[in-house]
């Protein structure tokens, strides 16, 4: 995402255990950052939901090992928020059809999933319509 949009003005990184109990922490962080960027209420809710779905997508496919970690990086590009979730480790097919990617595609402007043998990386971009974040 850096290649396409240049260096972010600010980056915030969050590391969470691969544990559904902490997905709410990811939503809260996303909400705080989107609010800081002066996204409107609807945009903030979209960002929260997209991050939550992205976490669920990865958790469903991450094989539990010793201390598995989900890393979420929020990158602020002016009036756009880039969010990348990464899990590095053994993965598996979820075995069930889920709606996560369908929902993500309806909530953000860009989304991409990159899956390799060693990692799952899900990137999203949400553009703010309105006043730019100019700090």
């Amino acid at each position, binding site marked *: 995402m850096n290649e396409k949009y240049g260096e972010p003005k600010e980056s915030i990184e969050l590391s969470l255990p691969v544990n*559904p*109990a902490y*997905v*709410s922490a990811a*939503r809260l962080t996303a909400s705080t950052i989107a609010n800081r960027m002066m996204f409107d209420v*609807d945009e903030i*809710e*979209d960002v*929260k*939901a997209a991050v*939550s*779905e992205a*976490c*669920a997508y990865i*958790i469903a496919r991450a094989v539990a090992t010793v201390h598995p970690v989900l890393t979420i990086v929020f990158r602020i590009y002016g009036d756009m928020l880039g969010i990348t979730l990464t899990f590095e480790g053994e993965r598996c097919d979820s075995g069930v059809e*889920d*709606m*996560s990617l*369908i*929902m993500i595609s*309806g*909530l953000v402007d860009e989304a991409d999933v990159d899956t390799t043998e060693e990692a799952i990386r899900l990137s999203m971009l949400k553009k703010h319509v309105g006043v730019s974040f100019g700090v």
Partner: protein
Amino acid sequence: MDFSIKPVYDGEKKRWNVAVTGEVDIFKSSEFKDALIALTEQNAGSLALNCTELQYIDSTGLGALVAVLKRVKSAGGSISLSHLRPNLLKLFKITNLDKVFVIEGDETNE
């Protein structure tokens, strides 16, 4: 935030009126599903979910609702949702589940 349900059975309409509060996400969706299924096992019929205090539901929560709907439908019932917040109604529309559940108060579906 956790979720809670406050169910009241309407014997005349053979329907559970359920007020849902809090958040239903990947951490709590199984529990949510089990709680609704338990109601249908206690008294068969439809479910009317009042979502005034439902702050958030994710795809796993929607999946739980679909699973419960299959059970309810097999017994001739339905699931309706009312007072959904706009951001949650959006999730139903994105997934086309607004065509599967009865969503009350959604003027675009009329």
